[in-house]
Structure formats: C-alpha cells, structure tokens
C-alpha cells in the first residue's frame, strides 16, 4: 500500500512549526535583511536565537531528533523532514535548541557530562572537524596528525570549511594516529576544547553562511578526550556524515515553496503592457515547471526519510534527494528571480539572498558530482537494482 497521508500527529507538528515560522520568524525577516545589507551581522542575533529557542521549548519543541531519554522529542525521520521543510520557508537560519551531534552519544559517561549534556542544554557549542584543504569527500586523505606523549595526545594540522567553527566551544577533531593503517584503523576522533589552544579563522563566502578554518599547533589533549576508541574515528565520521543527508534538500524544498509563492503573487500583480505577468505563457511555464519539481523533490525527500525510519539502507535514496534538491532548488530560485525582474536582483527582497545561499547545496555534504558517483556506482556494481526502490 502506498499511503501519502500524514498522521494526525505529523500534521499537527507540521502546523505547529508552520505557525511558529509565520508568527515568530517571518516578522523578523525585514530587520534581518536590513542588518545584513548594512553589514551588521547575519541571521539572528545570539539573543534572538536564544529567546526563540526558549519560546519553542515552552511547548516542548526542543531536541527534534534528540532521544526522549535525553529530554528531546525523538522525532522520526519523516516528521523531522516535515519540520525542516517548514523551517526552510524563511531564509532566517533557525533550528530548535536541544540538539547534539549524533556521535556525541557515543561518548562515555564522564564525557557525556562534559560535552553531550551541556550541548543539549545549549550551554556549549560543538563543531565537526574532518575536512582539510586536501581532504573533502575524500576524507581518507586527512593529514592532521596526533601523536602520543605520555598520557596526552598532541595534535597538529589544519581543518577547513568547518560549520560552526567560529562559535564552537569544542571541536570533534579527526586526526591520524597511525599513518600505516590510515583510514582503516588509524584515525581517531578527539574532543578538543577551545581552551586547549586551537584557533579559528572565519572564511568569507558568497552566502551569509560563514564556516571557519581551524588551526592545531601542538594542541595537547588528555587520553580521556578520545571519543570512542583509538583508531575507530573513521567509523564515527561516517556515522556523522550519514546522519541525515535528506534534511538538506528538505530545507531547500521549503525555500522553493516560499519562492514559488512569491513568484505567483508577483506574476498576478505586476502588469506589463496592460496585462499581468501571469497571463504570459513564458511565465506560466516557469511556474509550472517549478511546481512539478517541487512535488517531485517532496516525494524524493520523504521517500529517503521513510527508508531511514524503516531501517533500510537509505544512502542511495538520500543521494538522489540531495542531488535533485541541489540542482532543482538552484533552477527554481533562478526562475523566481527572473520572474521578479529587476526587483528580484535587489537586496530589498530575499530572493538574491536565497540565490546565493542555495548554491551551497550543490557543494557541501557531498557535491553533485559525489552524489552522482554514489548513484552510478550503486547501479554499476549492482548494489541497487533499477526499479527496485519500493522493494
């Protein structure tokens, strides 16, 4: 049976987030745009973010995917995707509080007290540091080195494009501890406090999003800060990377919905040569194509999430959703900008902001090309059969 209906709970959660976005976030949009135009910082201020998270927490919207025993909501993948779609409808970057990187749950009890629980509580901020100038999706090529010195490890190397690296209180750093074994048992993950001595440098980008490069120069961490086991870091890294690729196109889908709605409103009101744009076939086709792609993307995202919930190997479906979402979101924002003409190009409207922001989706967490490689390899090696996605 293929049943596309949401459960009552899913619909209520979706509606809750939709109302929250409309009542709490969208009213802040003009001010956020104004501040960004004037170079007064991007997105919400830390105080605004904190207040909004606390407001949501009053209604138990806290720790979307954090397990219930840690005080979270423990939402399944499909419902989380629905939440992400709604959050994507505003360009204001917002996520609910109470979350923590999935691999922090592999910490031992003592580490959980110092890292996991304060992260869930919002008292500490983490960042995941694997990427290096010479190692992206080819993460096995990392060069950052950690050697043992008594009961400490000494880390040397450079990480780059680290999301949240500028704000983080501690980093989950992946370093080579056994060069001979490399990724096959020679990489270890360390929990490294900022006070241990690493530096972060912001990297300006074409988007409002700003990652960091991290520099480790003889940074010493005690043995007790190894996350998981020595030599088992690469397995943890794979768990982090595979934690929810479907959520990236989910958020972009929300953006596309909002953008298309803007284009429809504009096409209905803007008149050229005595007729609204909506009556021009060139505009109608752009609107129609965008709608078709939005609905196709919705099915791909929810199908990938459904596979996650059902314990299936979802990597192939997640790659498909990520690739399609990245490509189509960029085409849609381009069309919406085109429909708006000069207005779309201005910084009075958020379209150009989305245009810059969505471009990233084709690059981070696996470029389009990496997704295509995965999809093709799965088929050519026979891991996945054509036409078998429903089992």
């Amino acid at each position: 049976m293929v049943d596309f209906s949401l459960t009552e709970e899913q619909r209520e959660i979706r509606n809750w987030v939709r109302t929250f976005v409309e009542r709490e976030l969208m009213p802040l949009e003009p001010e956020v745009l104004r501040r960004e135009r004037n170079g007064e910082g991007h997105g919400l201020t830390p105080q605004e973010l904190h207040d909004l998270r606390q407001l949501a927490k009053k209604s138990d919207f806290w720790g979307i995917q954090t397990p219930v025993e840690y005080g979270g909501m423990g939402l399944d993948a499909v419902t989380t995707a629905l939440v992400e779609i709604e959050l994507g409808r505003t360009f204001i970057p917002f996520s609910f509080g109470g979350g923590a990187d999935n691999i922090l749950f592999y910490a031992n009890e003592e580490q959980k007290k110092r890292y996991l629980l304060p992260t869930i509580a919002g008292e500490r901020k983490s960042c995941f540091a694997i990427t290096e100038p010479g190692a992206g999706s080819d993460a096995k090529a990392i060069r950052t080195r950690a050697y043992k010195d008594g009961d400490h490890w000494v880390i040397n190397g450079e990480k780059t494009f680290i999301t949240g690296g500028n704000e983080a209180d501690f980093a989950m750093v992946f370093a080579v501890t056994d060069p001979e074994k490399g990724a096959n048992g020679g990489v270890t993950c360390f929990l490294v406090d900022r006070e241990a001595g690493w530096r972060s440098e912001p990297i300006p980008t074409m988007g409002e999003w700003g990652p960091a490069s991290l520099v480790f120069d003889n940074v010493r961490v005690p043995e007790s800060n190894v996350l998981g086991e020595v030599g088992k870091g690469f397995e943890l890294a794979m768990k982090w990377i595979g934690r929810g690729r479907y959520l990236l196109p989910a958020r972009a889908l929300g953006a596309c919905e909002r953008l298309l709605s803007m284009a429809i409103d504009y096409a209905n009101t803007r008149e050229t040569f005595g007729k609204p744009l909506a009556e021009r076939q060139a505009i109608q086709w752009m609107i129609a194509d965008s709608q078709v792609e939005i609905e196709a993307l919705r099915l791909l995202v929810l199908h990938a999430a459904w596979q996650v919930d059902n314990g299936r190997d979802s990597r192939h479906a997640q790659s498909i959703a990520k690739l399609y979402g990245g490509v189509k979101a960029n085409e849609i924002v381009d069309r919406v900008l085109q429909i708006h003409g000069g207005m779309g190009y201005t910084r009075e409207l958020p379209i150009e902001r989305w245009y810059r922001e969505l471009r990233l989706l084709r690059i981070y967490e696996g470029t389009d090309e990496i997704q295509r490689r995965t999809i093709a390899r799965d088929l050519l090696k026979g891991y996945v059969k054509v036409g078998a996605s429903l089992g």
Partner: protein
Amino acid sequence: MNIVVLVKQVPDTETERKLDPADSTVDRAASDGVINELDEYAIEEALRLKEKHGGEVTILTVGPEQATDSIRKALSMGADKAVHVCDDALAGSDALQTAYAIAQTLGTLEYDLVILGSESTDARTGVVGAALAEYLGLPQLTLANKVDVDGTSVKIQRQTDDGYQVVEATLPAVISVVEKINEPRYPSFKLIMAAKKKPVTKLSIAEAGIDADKVGLANATTQVVDFAPAPPRTAGTVVKDEGNGGVLIADFLASKKFV
C-alpha cells in the same frame, strides 16, 4: 471550576474564501479549515483560569467532520476533553440556530463558565454569545479583555471604543473575549502526542437534545439573499514628488476624509 470553551472551525483567512452559489453557504472545500483565531484566546483564558482555580476545560464544537482538526488543536493546547456535535442536519444553520444548538448541548454538560471568541472570522455576526446567554437564561459578559473569577462571581473588563466598562455577574455565565485579553500559547508537543488519548464525545443532534426542525438551512431565521465577491483591488495612484509631495498627500488624505 468547569469551563466550556466554544470552538469553531473556519476557512483559513490566508486563503481565498468563497461562498457556494447554490445555497449561499460557506464553501468549505474551497479553503483549508483552521481554528477560529479568537477561539484560541478563549481557550487560553480558560486554561489560565483552570491553572488558577482548578477544574476542567471542555471544548464544545458544533460543526462538520473536518472540525476534528480544530478540536485536536484545542486539546493540544491543554483542554481536557471535547464534545463534538456533528450532524448533517446542522448544515446551513445561522447564528441563532447555532446558539440554540449549543445551548441544548450545554444542557447535557456541567459548567460554571462558557467562554467563546467574540466573533468568527467567517460570518462575523458576533451574536452567538449574546443569543446563547439568552437561550440559557444566563448573564452575558461580552467583549472581555480581562477576566477575574472570585468564588461564585466573575468580573470582566468589557472593551469599548473609548476604554472599558467593568461588568460583574454571578456564575454560571457566558463570556466572549477579544484578542487583547491574552497571548494564546502554542500547543505543546507532549500534548500533541497525547491528544488522541483525550476523550472526544461525538453527538448527533438527537443525542444533544437538538430539535431537527429548529436547525439547518431550511429552518434558518435569516437568509442570505444575495452576495457578490469583493471588487478587485484597483491600481493605486502614483504621486510624484516635485517639491509638493506633502501637499499632494495631505490633499489625498483630506479627499478620503482621513484628516
């Protein structure tokens, strides 16, 4: 203290709302149904009174099957249970008939207070509260922007154009609220997940003690004789500021009698 809150499902004001040309009733299929916004304020006030004085909050809805969504939302905000009068015979009932149906249903419930929004965003008659009080023979305290209960009496601030009046009555009473009264809470996630477990009693008109000859379109006391869609918005006038912009704007405002 037991409080009954009246909840109505209305077409979403964000979408294009239509009347059905066949019988001039609301075309419910044309737009999504949402909880009437003012009813959220009524629920909030009831929950606050319950938190202060104890008791139970019951949601009462007279409306079609789809109204279940609004009932669930009310339960997710914290109401304890709901009564849903759902019967095809009610279709097309006007404000007076609705008040009658609610009054009859309330006869099957125990309550100290009935709270409702001062109007719904669809029909906007704003008379159900007054008519209901009349049917029940209870004091009506309308347009409340503040409610205080003390023992067996209730005191409200009744909002007027110039300020407010303080109105007092003994319980039980009917209170209608305006949006200045409070800031409605969001439903809580835990209550969303638990809403299904809360009792929702579904009643036919017979079970609610409603006389079939007194409700429905055919027996309505008022009739929609004609209707027309709002005229489309016309293009605005562009005023070019050539040093006299202020004068032009003042003239415009004066011509529309704004100043």
